[in-house]
């Protein structure tokens, strides 16, 4: 172009900016990993007695730690994946009814508790049904929201909201008709408690499945970057949009189902962790998925540790607080802290 165009004000050297960005990302990820390590050590030290535990207690704490890491990472990544799929930073496993579907499955199994079901696993029938419930919701939402094999993000969102509402109504109904004592247990479970009777095998399987899901998500990171643009843009850039959406949907469903299996429905993690990480390192999905997994794991393990510390040292003899309550108490203010600059700086257009 021979004539020079009008210039706009802007920053200087483009590639220097890119390098600074990459360095910052690395620093943040390392910091998050350190947080996870810190939380893990705290979880092992905190319990009925403070300090390095004897073998049997150590086993118990290690199992709880394993559950916490798995559930935290799985939920956070599930949220990030759904946000990419739905092109909406407010998406979470809850929105699509995945968590409520798992809850409904769990309650129905308890309600129709039939002798012999538990032959499947030591504590099996209820947890298996939770898993099946989440998957069933996934299939229903997919079947209703797809057109000629294409998932339409807006349709998924709308149908997910409806399915979530229906699940909620069904849950209320089942709770209502359940015998009083069973209802009490159901209500408690729904607040989110780590399963005390998950065998190492079960935890291992869910952890492996989650690791696979997270790994695939990381590998699909660049594809997700493309997918947040319009369908025609994504198509033109060479992305197999249809296949990607299906894969992302399945990953989110499996991650959520596994997490509900181990710890009941826990809210907030899937929404907040990807958000916070995005505010720290930007929207590129490859580092975002890794960061979200780390942030989620740290949050859940820290929450579990705090609950145990509170019930042992602060209020001895008190009941264990459900973890869903604490993730909201921790996550909420942290979220607000990160969001405040954006929120307070806004002006109405």
């Amino acid at each position, binding site marked *: 172009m021979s004539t020079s165009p009008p210039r706009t004000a*802007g920053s200087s050297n483009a590639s220097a900016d890119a390098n600074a960005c990459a360095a910052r990302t690395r620093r943040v990820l390392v910091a998050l990993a350190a947080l996870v390590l810190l939380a893990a050590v705290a979880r092992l030290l905190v319990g009925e007695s403070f300090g390095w535990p004897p073998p049997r207690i150590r086993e118990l704490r290690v199992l709880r730690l394993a559950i916490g890491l798995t559930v935290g990472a799985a939920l956070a990544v599930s949220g990030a994946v759904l946000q990419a799929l739905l092109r909406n930073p407010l998406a979470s496993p809850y929105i699509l009814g995945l968590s409520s579907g798992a809850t409904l499955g769990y309650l129905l199994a308890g309600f129709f508790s039939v002798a012999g079901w538990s032959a499947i696993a030591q504590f099996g029938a209820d947890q298996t049904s939770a898993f099946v419930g989440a998957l069933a919701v996934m299939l229903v939402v997919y079947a209703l929201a797809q057109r000629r094999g294409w998932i339409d993000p807006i349709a998924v969102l709308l149908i997910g909201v409806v399915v979530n509402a229906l699940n909620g109504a069904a849950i209320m109904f089942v709770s209502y008709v359940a015998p009083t004592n069973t209802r009490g247990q159901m209500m408690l479970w729904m607040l989110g408690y780590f399963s005390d009777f998950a065998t190492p095998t079960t935890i291992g399987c869910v952890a492996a499945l989650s690791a696979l899901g997270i790994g695939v998500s990381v590998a699909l990171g660049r594809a997700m970057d493309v997918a947040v643009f*319009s*369908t025609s843009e994504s198509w*033109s850039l*060479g992305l197999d949009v249809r296949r990607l959406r299906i894969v992302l949907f399945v990953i989110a469903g499996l991650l959520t189902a596994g997490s509900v299996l181990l710890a009941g429905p826990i809210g907030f993690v899937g929404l907040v962790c990807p958000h916070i990480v995005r505010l720290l390192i930007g929207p590129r999905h490859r580092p975002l998925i890794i960061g979200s997994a780390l942030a989620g794991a740290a949050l859940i393990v820290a929450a579990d540790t705090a609950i145990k510390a509170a019930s042992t040292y602060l209020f001895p003899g008190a009941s264990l607080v459900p973890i869903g309550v604490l993730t909201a108490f921790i996550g909420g203010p942290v979220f607000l802290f990160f969001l405040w600059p954006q929120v307070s700086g806004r002006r109405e257009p």
Partner: protein
Amino acid sequence: MSGDAVLEIRDVDFAYVAHHRVLEAISGRVTPGRLLVVLGPNGCGKTTLIEVLLGSLRPDRGEVRLLGKPHAAWRPAERAAHISFVPQTSSPGFAYSTRQVVELGRYALASDPPAIDRALADVALDDSAARAFHELSAGQRQRALFARALYQTAAGGRVMLLDEPVSAMDLYWVHATLRRLRELAAGGLAVVVVLQDLSLAARYADDVWLLAEGRIVAAGPWSEVLDPARLSSVYGLPIVREEPVANAGDDDEHAEETARRPRFDARWK
């Protein structure tokens, strides 16, 4: 028309909603080295046509072939090597930087960072490369999307499809972009661009497809298709053709041939 068609569209019908056809019996060929402008009133199906040419919409009837192969037979990554697309607007829900947006142009292809810088420089957005894409003005965003297509097509693209790519740009960039498209066409690229402005179309097009109510009412060289009577009937208001005034004092022999093309304007009676 020179060379084999890069894109061929054969007898295509398309409807978003059953019984409400947006495109009907569309046939045509897009050839390399020519800049094809698609014109027509609002709602006549221009954007739909672009997306059908791109392959992101599948026709209800008929087919579209890219380099002789139907779209369905192409693997996405291979397709991206040949065909690039510039939408009218883009609003990703996340805060990608301008440079990151351009970088995605070669998602399916081998990346080449200096080429990204060149593309950004071509649209004079190298200063804003680190700024968030959504913070740019509408015109700047369109320039960034154009830069993305430039980056993608520099890897050996054969055809570029653009849907109203200059609608928000200022006067300088409108002409700079269209002039760049002419240069690309001269270099062998097949260019299809949807425009609203008839004079712009007259000035820069080689060929024109005039759409009305989902059908191509005229296709061919711009001088044939841009007939005032036909345009008036399609657009529903009187359109006149104005010949450029010959500047006696014009001694610039390098004034573009295209600058001497007629203008089209509306005249209410």
